[in-house]
């Protein structure tokens, strides 16, 4: 069920969200990614109907839903803090959207049992939200959003209120859930690693504009501009002349694409700092004028602070920028 945003504009003081045209990938896991203040939450709220755009149209399934209030759009939203009704049990929380639709009691019960089973909360249904853990509360919130069988499921920063440990587990679960139900999910986050991990497709926002969209690998490997390059993953950025590259002002490359050597290399400098991260090490090398280059090495390689080091970078993994925009080498 394709969802398309057309000419959406929304102003808040100095900030303006502006999306010319964008269609979310159907029956897939979409991520809206961006730093805070980039307009990603506003985008989500406009889709849900909680915010009304200054101009533009929202088309869902060939139907213009722009003027429909949230309660008439068939869209599920899981709030960042879950927003469960504290005076209702998990069961009654999940039942709310169905009761509003005046469904029969048996049908409601059947649907709740089914969604609770999918989400693994069948044994928590009689508890109140305050008696549930953060993760369980989230599942109840997801169940409440899913039980009405919405056309789209919106997730607002779904992992931000969870402990670092279960975050990875939950993001796997969310992806599995999307695959199982074969529905369109739109997940909003500021965490690029999280986005890369779950997304089929990423919409990357900055300052209210879409700066790039596409598959995670595309965005990582072929960033359209300096912002995208710097925002996603670890990155190095150097003046082009330092690497003897012509036709560009700046050159970027990823720490894992470079190699540290004892002597030689296109760049040379001194080891400034070594960070041991278990699976790999990140070595900061100071090259000319105090510029730092980060290189990823295997944990067994032994580099000491102050040691001289050379850096080798295959030409093919360089990303060239002119006027802040990526150019083909």
């Amino acid at each position: 069920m394709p969802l398309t945003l057309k000419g959406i504009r929304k102003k808040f003081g100095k900030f303006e969200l502006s999306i010319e045209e964008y269609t979310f990938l159907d029956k897939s896991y979409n991520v809206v990614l961006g730093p805070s203040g980039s307009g990603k939450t506003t985008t989500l709220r406009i889709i849900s109907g909680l915010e009304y755009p200054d101009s533009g149209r929202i088309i869902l399934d060939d139907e213009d839903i722009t003027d429909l209030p949230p309660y008439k759009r068939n869209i599920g939203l899981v709030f960042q803090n879950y927003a469960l009704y504290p005076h209702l049990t998990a069961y009654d929380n999940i039942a709310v959207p169905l009761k509003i639709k005046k469904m029969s009691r048996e049908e409601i019960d059947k649907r709740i049992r089914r969604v609770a089973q999918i989400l693994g909360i069948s044994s928590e249904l009689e508890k109140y939200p305050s008696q549930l853990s953060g993760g369980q509360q989230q599942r109840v919130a997801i169940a409440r959003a899913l039980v009405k069988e919405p056309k789209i499921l919106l997730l607002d920063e779904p992992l931000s209120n969870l402990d670092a440990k279960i975050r990875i587990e939950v993001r796997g679960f969310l992806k599995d859930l999307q695959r199982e139900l074969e529905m369109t999910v739109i997940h909003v986050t500021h965490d690029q690693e999280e986005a890369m991990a779950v997304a089929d497709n990423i919409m990357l926002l900055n300052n209210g504009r879409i700066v790039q969209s596409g598959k995670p690998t595309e965005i990582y490997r072929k960033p359209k501009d300096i912002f995208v390059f710097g925002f996603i993953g670890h990155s190095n950025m150097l003046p082009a002349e330092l690497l003897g590259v012509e036709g560009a002002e700046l050159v970027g490359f990823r720490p894992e694409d470079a190699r540290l050597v004892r002597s030689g290399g296109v760049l040379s400098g001194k080891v400034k700092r070594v960070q041991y991260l278990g699976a790999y090490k990140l070595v900061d090398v100071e090259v000319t004028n105090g510029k730092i280059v980060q290189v990823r090495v295997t944990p067994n390689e032994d580099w000491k602070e102050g040691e001289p080091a050379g850096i080798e970078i295959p030409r093919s993994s360089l990303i060239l920028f002119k006027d802040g925009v990526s150019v083909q080498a």
Partner: protein
Amino acid sequence: MRKINKYIFLLSIPAVAYLFAFTIYPIISNFILSLYTQDVLGKLHYSGLSNYLWFQKDPYLLRITSNTLLYMITTPVFDIILAIPLAVSLKRIGSKWLFLIMLPAFIPPVTAASMWYLMINPFFGLAYYITKYNLASSIWTVVLVNVWRSLPMATLIIYSGMASIPKEIEAAASVDGIRGAKKLLMIDLPLIVPQILAAFVLMTITGLFTFDPIYIGTSQAGPRILDNLAYYAFDQFYSGVPGYAAAIIVLMSVLSTALSVVYIRSLGTRKSLKLPAPSFMPSSDLPLWVHKVVMAIYLVFFIVPMYWVIAVSLKTPIELISIPPTLIPKSISSANYEFMLSGGLPYLVTSLGVATINTVTTLVLSAPLAYTMALHRTGGRKLLVYILYLNATPTLIYIIPLFAILKYMGLINTWGALILTYPIMTVPITVWILYNYYMKFPKQLEEASQMDGMNPLRTFIRTVIPLSRSGISVAAIYAFLYSWGALVFPLAFTYSPYDLSHPLSFSGAQTFSIFIGLLMSPVSMSYGGVAAAGVISSIPPLILLYFGRNNLQKIWGSGGV
């Protein structure tokens, strides 16, 4: 732009339409009326500014103006000076005592005034043991009654300011060794300047519109002795000079508008003030017992009049007029209660009935409006300022045009007159209470309801109401309190007690407040009856205070009402 949601419109329009019709129209109509005079036949004639020109000739006006200024200035000054030490002790001892301190604010104003006049009676009152002077003829007694009844609210506002000082600042002061009086001057008072200012202005407004103590006290002191502009305007209206009354009311409206502007500004202010803290100021905490003594003194001040009215109400008719008065009744009698109920029942029925109906009406109007104002920004800042303006202006200024409307509708001297007009005094205060309450309501629950398919009306009924019981119960308590103690509207719109022999006519609608005033008048003077009526009139609000104390405390503690 998106259309205004019809459900939000439906939720807010009843209260907004009511308030506009019943406040803006009277203000305009009152101004027009002030340009007319009424002849002996009751016909109105246009007379230009003659009512205003009469200000210069009115022989009483000088005295009345000086009384008005005295009440207006001394009430807030005493209130603030007395409230600060009490708030400090309260903070130290613990807010559990707040409940006792709030007692006087829950006594109906007419009852409060009667209590004091009973107590200061030079022969039969407690004053017999204290002074030879007849305090009843002094205008300072009016100030005393004002302060007794308004001090709790002033204390509450200042206390809630102190309670909201961030813990980190308290901790920093403590680490820096700033304590006791020095802390009060360097930390506490400078940070609660906005609350002190708000309390001062609110009490100035209370002082400016002093009415009930004058109504009760005039029968003891004599005509015109205690009058202020508010009472005088009412008196002129009552004695059939509506044009001149309207002119005085226009003058008061201008004054109250100016004051309410200051009040609204003071609520928005975030200013703090640096106070000099001389080095000799002790920088150590006073021992706890000092705070307890302070608290005890205040409680004596608050509770003695209540004790006295109960004691008097239980005395036998003979003991009542014995000189010297007995401090503790020698024998307990229910004679006063029987006497009082024999005449007072219809008044009591009206007060209970109308106050109950108005509490429901008020909530039905206020809660949805406050919800849409807080969560959907209905009316924006303009409506909010207007609500505050209505809170800061006395209902007295509407009586003349309202009287005309009620007369046209044939509702004078019926329950209908009171049911239709009481929301003017209760809707603004309850909207303000609930607006502040709903500002803290988790917006996401409201949005979650919409995502679950509820329109704003259903959201309000299914999500908001069940989760705001404590706020609504506090609003209900205030709505009842104001309706139960109302005096100006029943005085203006009714003239006989409820006709119990034809109960379904609902005609005759004088309230219990009026009954107390009647018992207090020199003609029917009955101290025992007044005392018994005073006790009875205090019971319903005190029951509400008792059962609502936990919810009240939550609202009081978080910024006050």
